[in-house]
């Protein structure tokens, strides 16, 4: 009872404060909820750079706020409601697990616009956005296939969801394209961020003879392990430049700024509409970080050529002929995967011997 009274009073107060603010010609208010701390050096850090880019672009015309380390689930609904009550005009929710809370809160605040990252549920005031990380995986897979001497590359998976499976398949396809003998070992950490676990996963892969590690988790622990063992790896989500020139020989950087600037711009012009965005290398949302001199010049040139071909739309990383791991045909010669196929991907391509946890 006490809490209910408190909430009611608090929301009444906020409403009272927010109402005159809306009446005047105040700056556009933009809210963010993050799943991790802004200092995680990876996923959330990159989203926060996007938020700062909005402020740099529009200056006094916008006002941004964020709530960090919001757990996925019921607590997210509280955080979203708080941002909506505080008078935010558009709210970005930056993790997959915020999907249902966003839908619930959006239904209660029809005048507030919501944007949900990596999700698939939309409505009139809820848009979704995502990045084609698998395009970047194709580029680093090429480097991995060329650089491995043991012909065994390793992949540290976070959770067996389509986004991660796209990454595993894309890097394997392109590693094998340049090195037909290459094998892939996959270890699931069941976490997006757990340095100790990631380090152990990397050591396990290294002990199996892996000499190139790809990671879908956010800490630099696998790179540190790779360095001690003389292996190489890649930056994930952010550049991880401290490990240049080796073991970090390249990286996949999530660059959300262009999208955020575009969407906030649409709010300012009054042209915002719900929709689904899935941008990649060509739109500058997926960026390949500097390929260092630890990679031979011809491999670097090959990887950059692939990057440019994907960016220009001349090449799709999932182009047939491709078979599924069970030997059945997935894509015929020259056929490319549809977005629907990719967004529900739950199988490995032929050549990967591991099983996907079901």
């Amino acid at each position, binding site marked *: 009872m006490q809490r209910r009274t408190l909430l009611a009073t608090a929301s009444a107060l906020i409403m009272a404060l927010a109402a005159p603010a809306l009446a005047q010609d105040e700056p556009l208010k933009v809210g963010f909820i993050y799943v*991790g*701390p802004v*200092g*995680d*050096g*990876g996923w959330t850090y990159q989203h926060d750079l996007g938020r700062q880019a909005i402020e740099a672009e529009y200056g006094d015309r916008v006002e941004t706020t964020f709530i960090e380390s919001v757990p996925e689930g019921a607590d997210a609904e509280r955080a979203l409601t708080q941002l909506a009550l505080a008078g935010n005009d558009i709210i970005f929710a930056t993790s997959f697990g915020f999907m249902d809370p966003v839908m619930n809160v959006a239904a209660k605040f029809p005048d507030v616009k919501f944007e949900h990252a990596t999700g698939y549920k939309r409505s009139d005031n809820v848009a979704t956005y995502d990045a084609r990380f698998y395009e970047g995986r194709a580029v680093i897979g090429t480097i991995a296939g060329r650089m491995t001497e043991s012909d065994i590359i*390793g992949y540290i998976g976070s959770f*067996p969801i389509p986004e991660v499976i796209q990454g595993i398949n894309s890097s394997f396809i392109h590693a094998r394209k340049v090195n037909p003998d290459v094998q892939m*070992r*996959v*270890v*699931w950490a*069941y*976490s997006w*961020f*757990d*340095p*100790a*676990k990631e*380090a*152990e*996963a990397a*050591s*396990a*892969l290294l*002990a*199996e003879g*892996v000499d190139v590690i790809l990671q879908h988790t956010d*800490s*630099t*622990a696998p*790179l*540190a*392990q790779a*360095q*001690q063992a003389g292996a190489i790896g890649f930056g994930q989500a952010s550049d991880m*430049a*401290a*490990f240049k020139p080796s073991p970090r020989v390249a990286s996949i950087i999530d660059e959300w700024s262009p999208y955020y600037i575009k969407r906030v711009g649409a709010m300012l012009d009054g042209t915002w509409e719900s929709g689904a965005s899935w941008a990649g290398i060509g739109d500058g949302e997926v960026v390949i970080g500097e390929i260092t001199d630890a990679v031979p010049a011809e491999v670097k040139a090959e990887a950059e050529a692939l990057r440019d071909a994907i960016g220009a739309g001349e090449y799709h990383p999932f182009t047939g002929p491709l078979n599924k791991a069970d030997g059945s045909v997935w894509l015929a010669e020259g056929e490319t995967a549809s977005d629907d196929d990719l967004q529900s991907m739950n199988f490995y391509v032929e050549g990967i*011997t*591991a*099983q996907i*946890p079901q």
Partner: protein
Amino acid sequence: MMIDPLSVFLLLISASTPILFAALGELVAERAGVLNLGVEGMMITGALAGFAAAYATGNPFLGFLVAALAGAVISMLFAGLTQLFLANQVASGLALTLFGLGLAAMFGKPFEGVKAPPMPTGPLRINWIVWLGLIMVPLIWAFLNRSRAGLILRGVGENHEAAHALGYNVRLTRTAAIAFGGAMAGVGGAYISIATVLQWTEGMTAGAGWIALAIVVFSKWTAPGVLAGAWLFGGVTVLQLRLQAAGVAVPVQLLSMAPYLATILVLVIISARQKYSRRAGGGSPGSLGTNFHALR
């Protein structure tokens, strides 16, 4: 598919080092009768302070020294609350964890994105801190069971009224035990930042402190038990990752559950055997978690 047991063993002793240090420190504190749930907060403080010192001086060992100091210093907050002001130990410990996480996040900003100096390896390609952790096990066992100071410490933990009546300074003993626990947790945390990840990131201890607390219970409050617990937990984790990496066709969910299942199983076996043991309360120190106030 054969997995070389020696390589698994070498991996597991490195992997279990952070929780081994933290659990040994907490063991000493709990044997003195203090339940400090702030292990996670002291670990993260050590992780940051140690990383900062190692980065600034280029010497990882100096980093561990500073981490131990920082852990001990922040544990004095808990000591002040519980020993001086007689605050509730559970609440104070939780507060210490939250405070440590927040403090480290705030002071850690300038150290994001830079890299620690490389850690020199000792015998068997295992670094010196891992060896130090292993040496600490018999040392702490000997201190608790074969030294006069250890006897006093255990006395304070078993029955603080009696220890006080015998003229021992309960609060001072406990404060020293808390400081030691803080120093050990600090080193454990610094192992993650200096030797495992080589970088500072917020929240990087990721719950290791809570596992350390569980291992102390698991050990029945003995140093060899702590080692066994840390190795069991670390060992099953390493083994399941190795099995995955080797491509063994065992459901991954089962493998991921294995460390926790093994821990629960051992706890069940221990408590089943407890019925026939002489000591009550699962072997926990008699005055664990209760504050001492001298009335006489």
